[in-house]
């Protein structure tokens, strides 16, 4: 990697971090002033999409860092899942209920969403 391209590479990550943090900050402000009704990170996400569609933020300013975080998203929630070790009793008592709910619920939701959109497509 040549020196200028390395610099561009680093700059693209630095600008990503700054923009993501700015959007998160805006989201958290909105969450605070809505009394916690609006979820901060979601508002931040919509704010970022808005900045992008208005052209105030260019895609290549933020893409490097965003793609990096999204690629590693699955890893990020492992520590929360590990919290299961503090809830083993709760888990053991309701494992069957959890599995049944996930199984039946997923089938129902999938059917409803698929059929609804298919019906809508056919009408048009």
């Amino acid at each position: 990697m040549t020196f200028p391209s390395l610099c561009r590479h680093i700059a693209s990550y630095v600008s990503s971090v700054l923009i993501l943090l700015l959007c998160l900050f805006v989201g958290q402000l909105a969450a605070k002033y809505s009394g916690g009704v609006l979820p901060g990170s979601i508002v931040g996400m919509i704010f970022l999409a808005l900045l992008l569609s208005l052209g105030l933020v260019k895609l290549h300013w933020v893409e490097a860092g965003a793609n990096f975080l999204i690629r590693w998203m699955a890893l990020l929630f492992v520590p929360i899942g590990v919290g299961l070790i503090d809830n083993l009793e709760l888990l053991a008592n309701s494992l069957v209920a959890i599995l049944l709910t996930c199984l039946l619920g997923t089938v129902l939701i999938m059917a409803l969403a698929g059929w609804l959109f298919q019906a809508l497509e056919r009408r048009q």
Partner: protein
Amino acid sequence: MSDLMMPLFYFLLTILVYLAAVHLQRRIEHPLLNPVLITLLVLVCLLLGLGIPYVDYQAGGHWLSDLLAPSVVALGVPLYKQIKQIKRELPGVLLVVALATIFALTSTVVLAILVGAEAEIAISLAPKSVTTPIAVMIVEQMQGEPSLGALAVIVTGLLGAIAGIPLLNLMGIREPKSRGIAMGTACHALGTARIVQEGGEQGAYSALALVLSATISAILAPILVPLILQWII
């Protein structure tokens, strides 16, 4: 010094186990070898076996959890790209995903209570069709148990990755966009990762549905779920 060493060790251990699990999945392509599921199993067994309490582990683990909020913000990038692509059909997609999301929250809570779960568990399961970081935040906000919520999200996602495509065929959902929306709404990122292998159109609609359903859930769940619980119990 040792105040920092152990958290750093747990932090690095989590990353290493995860990388090994990703490597394993690439070698043996099987949907049950989901890297998150493997990493969770390994870490849970290790901590329980060595008698390490969760608080000690989380001293390093929270460095990863703290990145969840910025990673949700980062989803704004794919959201922007998909909206640009799908502009014309956005109202229809929004309508269907909104209805399906309300149904998802309602049916999950009702089902959980029907099969005998307590209210705390029903709350934790409610956002099971939503991508993990957002689901965890929703559960935290409603004072459920985040780790149970995370588990329900993985189980749901694995179900989509393994059985989603045969299920869609069985249900007669053949139109590609509808297949994508069904998968994205019901089985979030894991389902999306599977349906995108079938075609780019399915993938794009699935990804859009997953972001939209997560957003709608985050806004509605804290209001809707307590109401449903009140009504049913």
